[in-house]
């Protein structure tokens, strides 16, 4: 397993390269920089083959699994069997909470691939900078305006045959010695998609606008201040696997950051940020027959509205000397979240209803993480890290408090809780290019506000209704990662394995017997005891010829709820990929094959699911850069028009069938 993978996106600039070098140093224990791999000289630089330009594709390249609910839109990141609150997902360290209680608007939906500098993925519980996690940390680092750069504009237009997916990207940037600005706009739109069997999946289109504006001011010889604003608007996003569609999802994300170089050893960064997400969904576009006949809450429309607002402060400081690196991060956030659902019966003699799913939950968290890395010798580096959090949780809506209090009489709804994680890792060089590493971590994470206070949240795959539980205990995990890597001029190899045992595993526990009432099964969040996760990851890149590189990877995950003897749900089966990249700087071609074994180890009680058949998919691409400023890319994804769905696709929503893509990118 690549414990930390940094994927650098297309067309990185000098500032980013410098950052990468810094990143290399700081995570010297076990970093593999996919983009920087000289063996895979793709100037496409891991750009996904699809011209949809979604960060979803990028996250897949980073080893993440996506829980799919829509047509290539807003997949929920899952990492090595961890998901939801077990992971920490951030944008430049900022926490952005989904407003939709059905996870239709994960924070990753608000980042466009062209606005990314790096995607940092950590799967060994060592990255605790921006939040507690059990071994899954994903941070999207946004591109920054660069000082001393000429005015540059980019326009990128692409389209796909499947779903008539179209994308427009416009970018302008530039900087003087003292000030730099950057603005980018992305429009993505798609009609209903077609699956590999030729079926058009109704209500699977979407339209999405994203605007990001950033500025950088040099306020001193060693200080600069940057600001960023992201405005994202998605409309009419179809979720065919669910019972409702997003009518509108909008996010406003803003941050101001002051970076200071105190000396050649000490740097600091202070970020103040705020964001708000408003999400509304409904079933107004669904056929009347579906409304009348669906299993859950038939004969009524049920629009839902959710909002979240987050205010945060991140103070980072680093001390880097020849043999030591010390990093301290203070991370404070305040979250307010509300979600309501209306129910409007088709029978007009029945009164309409309104339900509160989250009654103004407030979560205030203050965390501090410290990591210290020391090079003990030329061959051995050790690193220790820890994070402690203190968090208060409450709900402000008095009626909601009353409802939830009725479900849990005598239980305190207001919580003051904390979490402590710590890890130690070692990296040892056996011989030139041959390294081994190991990480031992004890991790802890606090329940999310949905797990504590969520009320009547519907899971369409399992057809269950879940209710939060205010006295949930923290999940605690012990994990051990071990791996080795080898690299020379023409070959790189890495193999790793890991095992993780989680106590107080939080899941929806059956609590109410509804077998005789006809009601949907209702579950309350609780602990199902101990769960184990383990897996392996192997990958290799080889330069066959100066113009021909090959890359292969295989990954497997195994998870089980030990106490209740049930496989963990939404665990991807063994997956493999092979990529061949040929060509040089003017003309390049690529062939990629992705394959997955069947998944027959399925959860039957934790979150009932069905088995998934094996599948394989091939993509091809040719890219031509006649001049440095112009790039033309043509590709075909799912060449064989394979009909398949991933195991983590909710309600077995099929993946897209064959699609021909054409894109043109010009720089001025």
């Amino acid at each position, binding site marked *: 397993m690549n414990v930390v993978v940094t994927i650098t996106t297309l067309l990185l600039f000098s500032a980013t390269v410098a950052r990468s070098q810094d990143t290399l140093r700081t995570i010297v224990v076990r970093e593999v920089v996919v983009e920087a791999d000289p063996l895979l000289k793709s100037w496409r630089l891991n750009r996904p083959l699809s011209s949809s330009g979604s960060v979803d594709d990028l996250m897949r390249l980073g080893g993440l699994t996506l829980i799919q609910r829509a047509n290539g839109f807003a997949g929920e990141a899952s990492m090595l069997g961890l998901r939801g609150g077990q992971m920490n997902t951030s944008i430049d360290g900022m926490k952005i909470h989904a407003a939709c209680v059905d996870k239709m608007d994960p924070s990753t939906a608000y980042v466009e691939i062209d606005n990314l500098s790096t995607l940092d993925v950590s799967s060994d519980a060592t990255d605790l900078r921006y939040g507690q996690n059990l071994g899954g940390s994903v941070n999207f680092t946004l591109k920054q305006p660069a000082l001393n750069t000429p005015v540059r504009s980019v326009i990128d237009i692409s389209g796909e045959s499947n779903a008539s997916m179209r994308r427009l990207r416009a970018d302008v940037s530039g900087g003087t010695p003292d000030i730099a600005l950057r603005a980018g706009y992305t429009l993505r739109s798609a009609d209903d998609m077609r699956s590999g069997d030729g079926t058009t999946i109704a209500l699977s289109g979407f339209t999405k606008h994203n605007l990001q504006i950033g500025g950088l001011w040099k306020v001193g010889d060693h200080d600069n201040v940057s600001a960023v604003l992201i405005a994202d608007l998605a409309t009419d996003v179809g979720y065919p696997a669910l019972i409702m569609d997003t009518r509108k999802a909008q996010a406003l994300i803003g941050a101001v950051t002051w970076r200071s170089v105190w000396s050649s050893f000490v740097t600091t960064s202070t970020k103040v940020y705020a964001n708000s997400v408003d999400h509304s969904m409904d079933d107004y576009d669904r056929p009347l027959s579906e409304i009348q006949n669906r299993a859950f809450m038939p004969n009524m429309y049920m629009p839902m509205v959710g909002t979240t607002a987050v205010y945060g402060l991140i103070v980072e400081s680093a001390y880097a000397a020849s043999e030591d690196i010390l990093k301290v991060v203070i991370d404070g956030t305040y979250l307010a979240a509300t979600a309501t659902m209306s129910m409007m019966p088709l029978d007009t003699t029945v009164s309409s209803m309104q339900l509160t799913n989250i009654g103004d939950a407030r979560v205030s968290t203050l965390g501090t993480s410290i990591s210290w890395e020391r090079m003990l010798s030329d061959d051995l580096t050790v690193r220790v890290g820890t994070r402690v959090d203190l968090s208060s949780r409450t709900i402000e809506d008095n009626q909601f408090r009353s409802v939830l*209090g009725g479900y849990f009489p005598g239980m305190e709804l207001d919580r003051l809780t904390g979490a402590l994680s710590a890890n130690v890792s070692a990296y040892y060089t056996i011989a030139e290019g041959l390294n081994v590493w190991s990480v031992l971590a004890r991790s802890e994470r606090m329940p999310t506000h949905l797990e504590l206070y969520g009320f009547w949240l519907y899971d369409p795959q399992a057809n269950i209704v879940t209710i939060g539980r205010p006295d949930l205990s923290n999940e605690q995990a012990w994990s051990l990662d071990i791996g080795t890597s080898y690299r020379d001029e023409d070959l790189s190899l890495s193999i790793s394995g890991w095992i993780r045992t989680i106590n107080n595993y939080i899941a929806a526990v059956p609590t109410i017997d509804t077998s005789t009432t006809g009601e949907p099964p209702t579950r309350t969040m609780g602990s199902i005891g101990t769960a184990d996760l383990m897996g392996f990851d192997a990958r290799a890149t080889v330069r066959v010829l100066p113009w021909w590189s090959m890359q292969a990877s295989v990954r497997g995950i195994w998870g089980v709820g030990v106490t209740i003897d049930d496989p963990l749900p939404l665990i991807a089966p063994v997956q493999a990929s092979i990529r061949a990249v040929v060509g040089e700087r003017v003309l390049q071609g690529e062939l990629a094959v992705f394959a997955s074994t069947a998944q027959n180890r399925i959860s039957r009680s934790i979150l009932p699911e069905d088995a998934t058949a094996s599948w394989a998919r091939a993509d091809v691409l040719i890219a031509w850069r006649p001049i440095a400023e112009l790039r033309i890319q043509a590709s075909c994804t799912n060449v064989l028009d394979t009909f398949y769905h991933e195991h983590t696709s909710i309600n077995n929503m099929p993946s897209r069938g064959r699609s021909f893509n054409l894109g043109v990118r010009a720089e001025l």
Partner: protein
Amino acid sequence: MSSFQIFLLALVALSVVGCSSTTDPVPPPTIDKLLISSATDAGYTAEVYATVALAEGYNPLFVRVLHNGVALSDAHVTVVPDMDMGTMHHSCPVVQPNDSIPDSTGLYNCAVFFTMPSATDWKVGVTIHDHRTDTTVTVHVPVSVSANGNVRIVQGAATTKYIFTLLSDGWKVGMNDVKFNVYRTTDGYDHTPVDDASLKMVPTMPSMGHGSMGNVHPSSTDGGWYTGRANFTMTGDWQLDLTVTTMDAQSFNAKYQIAVH
């Protein structure tokens, strides 16, 4: 001081007192209640007040009795509602005034459980025993009672009937105190509160096919009253399914439709 001066001072003092008594009369007590109806018989007037218009079920009433326009402050007042159904009459449960002295506004507090709605057929009989004159008069005050579905009358063993009354309240989302009252009668006039029944209450939402958790079955609090708690998790049409089991093992079911806002 001469006799004349004393006379003059006394005259001035009297005139001052006299002016005061004529320019600042003691105002009649203000009644901040809704006058439902009134009637007069033999010089005695009975006024029936309430906080809201009368409806089926439990109605707190306030009765003022006057003799020749002057509020009585020492009378024994008894309230006996009567429903004229043409071929028969009956009454309903009543909580009588418990004192012969009214409050400062002249009101006697009582309560009536109207068992059915009617715009014209209910009369509240107010029997007044004027302690000053030792006179007893009954004044029949016609009242209008609207429907709200809060009362269920079930037939028990032999001639016994049970009256279940839901105390209507402004139902809201969340935990609500729910009060029921249970009376029994054999002749329709004498009603006895039942304090030894067992009540089970289940809130459901028929249009949604679900109920809720955290509900508390009503338990007796004396006077025929039972208090429980219902958790209404959302706005809309709810139903309270009530099961009443009496000491003699008779079991009755009643459903109440309520709207939660």
